[in-house]
């Protein structure tokens, strides 16, 4: 049996749900459909948990299952846009795809640890690190001084360091 109990399954769900949805959405360009497909993958995993003999990591299983779901979905939708999306989906190598999922897993992890930052601090940090805004631009858009932006950034790094060290 893969999971000891439902709680363990839940942990896997919470860890991979967001990255998988992002991965599938990057292929099919439909956010709510992506969520449906990924939820399907998890439901299927749970109902067949006694029969599956995992030869690989749970991550690779989830990746493959979601990937196949995405292809299946695109095949069922016979529109021109989907034909193109399907083409690019099939042409990307397995390696590239797996890497893409890894990136989404990492982003997800960083975002989760960002939750420990105070709101303003988090906003400034994300604007700088994720949206690539300069201190000046952040200062202008937020109506604060560059010095304040720098203080927020320093605080963010301090908290993130403590956070990672504790876990």
């Amino acid at each position, binding site marked *: 049996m893969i999971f000891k109990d439902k709680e363990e399954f*839940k942990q896997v769900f919470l860890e991979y749900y967001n990255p998988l949805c992002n991965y599938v959405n990057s292929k099919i360009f439909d956010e709510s459909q992506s969520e449906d497909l990924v939820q399907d993958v998890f439901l299927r995993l749970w109902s067949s948990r006694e029969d599956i003999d995992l030869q690989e990591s749970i991550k690779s299983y989830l990746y493959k299952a979601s990937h196949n779901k995405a292809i299946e979905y695109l095949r069922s939708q016979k529109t021109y846009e989907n034909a193109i999306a399907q083409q690019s989906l099939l042409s990307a190598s397995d390696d590239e795809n797996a890497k893409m999922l890894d990136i*989404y897993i990492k982003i997800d992890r960083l975002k989760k640890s960002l939750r420990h930052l105070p709101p303003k601090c988090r906003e400034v940090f994300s604007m700088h690190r994720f949206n690539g805004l300069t201190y000046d631009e952040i200062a202008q858009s937020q109506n604060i001084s560059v010095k304040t932006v720098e203080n927020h950034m320093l605080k963010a790094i301090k908290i993130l360091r403590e956070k990672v060290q504790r876990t």
Partner: protein
Amino acid sequence: MDLNKIILKVLNNEATKEEYAILESWKKESEDNIAILEDIRRGDSEVNLPYTDYDSESAWSKVEPQLESPSGSYWRYALIAGLLLLAVIAYVAFDNYNENRLKDYRTDDKIEHIVLRDDSKVWINEQSSLREVTDFQGEERKVALAGEAYFDVEHKEAIPFIIDLGGDRHIKVIGTSFNVINVEEDFDLAVYSGMVELHVLDRVIEVPKGQRVKLVNGSYVKLKNKSQNLISWKTRNLVFDNTPLSKVLQDISRHYDVTFDKKEGVKMAQCRLRSKFSDERIEDVLAELKTVFDMQYVYTPDNRNIQIESLKCN
């Protein structure tokens, strides 16, 4: 030199050779240190990747009920099915009985979200009460309100929705959303969609979306509804968009039920804030003001008072 500053400089490609060396030796100290740096550095290469923050907790609550329970014998299933059937019968019977009774909701120190029998949704603020006056079967849907509530009324052309506010006023709508404060002389109606009819004695005031009616010195005054924070008690969000600090403090004291006093000589006329608080604790909000305005203050939780000692604006 402060390590945090060095990390920041390295991330921004502004570090000197010495600083790089310091960072390198820090990295050698442990795996953790490398992981931290990686974590923080992330984003650079991934800035352009489309990313959506899917809500995995709420997805889980959707998925969980669909998970079948652990396998068991046929009899166990039969027993469960039997019990379920009984529960359903009991529920239907109880529901039938309940449906004919007029409900009375009272909140003490919490906010309640209810769905009325016509599927209209109501958020009832603390220390308020909402009572069903009719059973919604006849010509009108009628409730009575004392206190504050936000209504999202189901559109039903033929059956108007009426809110009895006591005394000489009531509200009549077909289907819209709006917030009402109805506490004796404190009356405030803000409309968020559709149109609301406010009846006072034999006068009718029509209040369309985006408008607000407030009782000021005994007369009803029509205002533009500019404040997004009027219903912060329901949305849990306080939004400030270049808002004067005096107004910010007003909204904060309303939302958190606190009072602000300032030391003589503290000036805030020039201060403006752009920020958003989503369900934060008052302590975090104050910490934020401290960062932005360098605000020095004393917070006394016992009497929910904040004394502002000093602050300055950028």
